[in-house]
């Protein structure tokens, strides 16, 4: 009995010591110099390669720094899982060195107002970024006059993709330019048994309707009034919001009938299938997706009623306070803000550079057209993609529009939007 006890005691001591040793070992490893941890939700084809192109440039310039690519698949909505993990790390005071975030309110309301980010005024000065980024973009990036992230690309939300052959089946040669025209065409398509509009609303707070709705809103109320929705000068109980909701509500009648079962991820496959819908309102990353599917029968125009407007969203990177490798993070921000970095990233990602001096020869027909439009058109911030409003509002907004797609009760949905705006404290 006594002998056995001694063995047990020994075992216990060994266990305790090894646990203590393991704890010490963990501490040591975190302090390895020359690391750079980058958080993103870029995990699918095109995105990964684009990010890698930037990493390659970085590694050439700073060969001693080891890049840790902490990419996490998006889950629900854009970057849902990654944002959740990021939030816990930021709260716990252990930020990554830099992370992907939508330019605008998504960054500002989640992290800047909580005093967890460094302003990048010094970097913009040193790199001359104030001169190469358009004013609209710098304004979206800024809080109290100072920019907080470096935009790496610009995407356009208000694009309508269409299949000329499907429209030709009902004798339509030009895509509709207004919502009235859209419904005329949609009626013809419906008579021929063709869904007019692609919608993929499956998923909790899926957001596909939210994307379409921001384009309807700006087409109905114009850019000034639209911006006012987020500073309190336009109420969400406005008659134009009602009108916009009615348009979206009507559009469901002409959508692919299984839209409630089709997820955002599946909609592109639906769009390119032989019996697929004729039109789809979606951001310009769709171009890259359709190309990668080997699909040829499509063309593009701006979303109905948004001529002369450029609904902007942008991916950007910021500098968290207490970044463990601050110098490396700053070096990374310099690379992604540079002409070289942006021209390496964007042709692969299928977006245009946030800089106005991009090398045109590197971009294809669609992107060159988008670069022209970005110069001449008026920029308006996207809701669905984090530029116009804070994250908590976005979720409420998507929940409200999910309700519209299900129960088609315009008055109730408008009340939900009014409540959401109140909770978001716009203009306070």
């Amino acid at each position, binding site marked *: 009995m006594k002998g056995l006890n001694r063995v047990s005691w020994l075992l216990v001591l060994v266990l305790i010591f090894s646990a203590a040793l393991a704890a010490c070992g963990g501490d040591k490893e975190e302090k390895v110099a020359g690391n750079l941890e980058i958080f993103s939700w870029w995990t699918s084809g095109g995105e990964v390669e684009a990010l890698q192109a930037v990493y390659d440039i970085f590694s050439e310039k700073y060969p001693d720094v080891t890049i840790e690519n902490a990419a996490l698949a998006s889950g629900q909505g854009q970057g849902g899982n990654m944002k959740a993990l990021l939030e*816990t790390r930021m709260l716990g005071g252990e930020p990554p060195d830099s992370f992907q975030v939508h330019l605008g309110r998504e960054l500002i309301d989640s*992290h800047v107002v909580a005093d967890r980010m460094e302003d990048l005024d010094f970097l913009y000065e040193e790199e001359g970024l104030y001169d190469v980024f358009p004013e609209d973009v710098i304004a979206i990036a800024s809080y109290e006059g100072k920019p907080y992230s470096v935009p790496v690309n610009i995407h356009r939300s208000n694009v309508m993709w269409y299949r000329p052959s499907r429209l030709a089946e009902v004798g339509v040669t030009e895509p509709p330019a207004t919502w009235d025209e859209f419904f005329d065409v949609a009626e013809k398509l419906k008579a021929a048994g063709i869904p007019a509009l692609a919608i993929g609303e*499956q998923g909790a707070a899926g957001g596909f309707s939210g994307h379409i709705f921001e384009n309807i809103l700006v087409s109905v109320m114009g850019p000034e009034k639209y911006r006012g929705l987020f500073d309190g000068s336009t109420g969400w109980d406005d008659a134009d919001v009602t009108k916009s909701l009615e348009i979206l509500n009507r559009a469901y009648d002409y959508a692919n009938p*299984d839209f409630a*079962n089709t997820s955002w991820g599946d909609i592109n496959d639906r769009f390119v299938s032989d019996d697929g819908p004729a039109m789809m309102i979606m951001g310009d990353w769709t171009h890259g997706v359709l190309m990668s599917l080997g699909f040829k029968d499509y063309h593009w125009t701006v979303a109905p009623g948004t001529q002369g407007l450029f609904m902007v969203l942008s991916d950007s990177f910021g500098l968290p306070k207490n970044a463990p490798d601050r110098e490396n993070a700053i070096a990374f921000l310099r690379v992604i803000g540079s002409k070289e970095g942006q021209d390496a990233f964007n042709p692969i990602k299928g977006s245009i550079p946030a800089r106005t001096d991009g090398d045109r020869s590197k971009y294809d027909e669609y992107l060159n057209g988008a670069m022209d439009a970005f110069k001449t058109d008026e920029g308006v911030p996207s809701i669905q993609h984090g530029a116009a409003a804070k994250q*908590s509002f976005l979720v409420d907004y998507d929940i409200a529009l999910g309700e519209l*797609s299900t129960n088609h009760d315009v008055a109730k949905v408008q009340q939900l939007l009014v409540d959401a705006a109140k909770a978001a404290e716009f203009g306070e």
Partner: protein
Amino acid sequence: MAQGERGRAASPIRVALRRRARWLHGDTALAVLVLLPSIIAVAIFIYGFIVWTGYISTVKWNSSIEDYTSVGLENWRTLFGMERFRWDLRNLVLYAAAFMSQCIIFGFLIAVLLNQKIKGEAIFRTIVIFPFAVSGVVTGVAWRWLMQPTTGINLILQRIGFTNFDFQWNADPTLGILAISLAAGWQFTGYIMALYLAGLRGISDEVREAALVDGASTYRLYRHIIIPLLMPVTFTAVVLTGMGSIRVFDLVMILAGPAFSTDTLAFHMYQATFGQYRWSLGAALGFLMIFLSLFLVVPYMRSMRGEVER
């Protein structure tokens, strides 16, 4: 103890020390020492944080900025006033009823069939229990394809003649949650089957034979002997599936239907906390889920204690 000590005046201190020493050398001391790390860990990381969650649900932390201003029961009032919350409760009831009855009824029936000393029993048992080894996310994706109304199950049934079969499954705006319980039931039935099978194996053949000799029909044998003998297993199955119903998340995440038709407490908590940074509201939801679990855990603990005493 040492012989030499006998006869010496036993001072109270010495006695106490000796008692203590004996205690230290005993198995109890060892047990306490070995368990201490996990006791401390459980105390802090489970019970400590339950209390902390309860506290967070009474403060004003509903944005990305930490704010510990006390607001009393304001978050709870907000929660109870939400339409979404009423959907969550309704879905919990529907889901729990469907999921629990599926698992228990089919789990029991399959276990009885497998217990008939059939050939290749091990193969069938493996087939039935296999879904349990698949992660919830994989199950969800597979069932999403099956439930796609234009393909999947609908198409199969339409092809074999049921041309009117046009279910919306998880996309049904009122009963979508039941479609999710189907996927969950498919996954969990095998596990409950294994519980019942072990229970059935534990019932000795003598009991059966005695009943049969006395002229009991198979129905009466199960109705009056086997099912009552399996009550502890059923109780465990109810607790396990009940807990599973309260915290279901992964399947809902993948198979979510329109609006709140398939929303659950756990998904609501996740979205409020990590999607909207409404930490206090999320804490209220989490605390409520713990509270609901108590209705299952407390009776279970009691019955366990009763069994040990028996």
